């Protein structure tokens, strides 16, 4: 396999590096006090799942993500500046500051929404699958979620419908070993999640998320099959390097466990594979990393300097433009007090 720049692995490495750099800047923005709140869930350690699966998707495909979805959106083509601005609650963000980290979406990139309810976005890809089948679109829809969602009923309802109706849908479980502070083995007797999906008639596979090429190849098989009307399920095992959110210092796990988990690093793994195969040296990769770092530094400055949304935008988008709108409290008070 060639490892010249623009080889598949080089591109996957580049995307993973961008995700990690972006997530590091999110943490920095939080430390600076410039994020909107602390509900920020970093996907460091999970880059193999995001980059690998998304590389097997096509531009016309759609997807939903869980609340730890920054990496997935970047891998589907998001512009880092608009993402960071959204995370900071700014007007220039993808959702004009109304969605933030956990509810980011972009219609043009097929992002049907990140979701802050565990499992909440999963049935939406079933609906998208119904649409694509009815409208004869050559597209699939993928739901990304964590191992926590494996214990939500709506996942099984959704997988059952997708299988029953032969929908062009893929379910992707990013198993980072933790649902908040609860480890997989503390939540189930059957951590082999692919068995559950197979039992419902889905094309079910598992793959090691440290190896982004393996993720990509397995996902490619599943997206090809889904496009032909055979819905799939993929569980990508990885390790969440840091706490659940920014406030979580992970007191529920040992430093040994963390060290072992962080040793399963998809970015380092890909870098080592690139160097081993030759054609690119560590100086070239260092230059790439630095270039990405500069790009992501610029996202920080952009988000920090961006303007907040105007207060008047508060009442916008509850309903479609031109539909009856909610009456602002102050308007109502003026009317009521004018009578008094």
């Amino acid at each position, binding site marked *: 396999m060639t490892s010249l720049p623009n080889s598949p692995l080089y591109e996957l490495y580049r995307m993973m590096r961008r995700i990690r750099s972006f997530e590091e800047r999110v943490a920095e923005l939080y430390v600076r006090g410039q994020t909107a709140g602390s509900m920020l869930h970093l996907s460091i350690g999970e880059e193999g799942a995001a980059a690998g699966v998304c590389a097997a998707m096509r531009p016309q495909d759609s997807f939903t993500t869980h609340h730890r979805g920054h990496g997935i959106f970047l891998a589907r083509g998001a512009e880092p500046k608009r993402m960071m601005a959204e995370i900071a609650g700014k007007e220039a963000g993808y*959702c004009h500051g*109304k969605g933030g980290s956990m*509810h980011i979406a972009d219609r043009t990139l097929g992002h049907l929404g990140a979701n802050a309810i565990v499992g*909440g976005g999963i049935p939406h890809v079933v*609906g998208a699958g119904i649409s694509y089948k009815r409208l004869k679109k050559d597209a699939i829809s993928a739901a990304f979620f964590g191992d926590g969602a494996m214990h939500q009923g709506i996942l099984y309802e959704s997988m*059952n419908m997708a299988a029953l109706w032969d929908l062009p849908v893929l379910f992707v479980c990013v198993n980072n070993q933790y649902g908040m502070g609860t480890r997989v083995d503390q939540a189930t007797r059957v951590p082999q999640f692919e068995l559950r999906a197979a039992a419902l008639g889905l094309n079910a596979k598992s793959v090691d998320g440290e190896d982004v090429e393996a993720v990509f190849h397995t996902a490619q098989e599943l997206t090809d099959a889904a496009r032909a009307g055979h819905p799939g399920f993929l569980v990508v095992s990885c390790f969440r390097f840091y706490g659940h959110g920014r406030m979580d210092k992970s007191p529920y796990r040992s430093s040994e466990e963390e060290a072992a988990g962080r040793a399963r690093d998809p970015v380092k793994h890909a870098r080592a594979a690139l160097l081993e195969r030759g054609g690119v040296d560590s100086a070239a990769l260092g230059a790439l990393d630095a270039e990405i770092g500069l790009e992501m530094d610029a996202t920080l400055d952009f988000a920090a300097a961006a303007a907040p949304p105007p207060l008047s935008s508060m009442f916008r988008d509850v*309903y*479609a433009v031109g539909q*009856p709108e909610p009456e602002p409290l102050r308007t109502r008070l003026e009317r009521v007090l004018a009578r008094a």
Partner: protein
Amino acid sequence: MRGGTVTEITYRDALRKALADAMAEDDTIFVIGEEVGRYGGAYGVTKDLMPRFGADRLLDTPISEPAIVGAAVGAAMTGLHPVAELMYVDFLGLVMDQLANQAAKIRYMFGGQIGVPMVLRTQGGTGRSAGAQHSQSLEAWVMHTPGLRLVMPATAEDAYHLLRHSLTLPDPVVFIEHKALYARKEQANLETPPVPWGKAMVRRAGTDISIVTYSRMVHTVLAAAETLAKAGIAAEVIDLRTLNPLDMATVVASVERTGRAMVISEGVLTAGVTAELAARISEECFDYLEDPVVRVAGEDIPVAVSPALESGSIPSSGLIAETVERMLA
């Protein structure tokens, strides 16, 4: 002048005709739910639609209410216009995440980029001894959630026109039918709506008191108004038709003329629709009111199976007439 011919039709048949006419006009509309196709709907609303429109547009589902609503949300986000049928409004307890956290908030959370044009058709209310889990009036749960339109038709004519219009809207609509009205036969003009969607309607004009209600209670209140007329009291009866949007202008104009207001709902009293209506009328019509706004609503208890307990726990025309007479005495 309102044009169009008048025909006799049941509430159920008017709903079916609304679905069929809308589906014939708009290819993106499809029905998804339990028993909507082969079976024809638990209350027969979608009967005989399957042979005409096919299994792709009458999508029979497993018993999975959250995913029915969730799949409808996803289909609405990607180019179709779903009608999700929830067999009983009581099952809102199962689907509230997809309805309140997803459908209602997607347009707002995503900054206006993505809408959810869908109708959730369901039915509620008492009248069939269906018990505590199949007889509730849960419209207050929906009304308490910004982002959801809420429609509750009282007549066959409204069932038709309000559903047709709901299926042209860009936002999610919860359309709650009343199980005791399906067989009700009426003279209906299905060609021209009586008033636009979103507007309340004066069902009976009067000068002594304004009685505001919706859904089946419209008929209960009209019966009470008939009794009151014999006692020389002229009650004005207002049918809200939609609870979101809420047409307060029609209500306020009426109360300013009559000076008295009573609000009626089959749903339980506390923190219910009547609480909202009473508060608004009190704020907006304070200078015009001769009496406090009086609420008559369902008892603050679950619905019992026994027909005696069931009918005894919701407002009756007798109680409404008696209460009005005491107010005016």
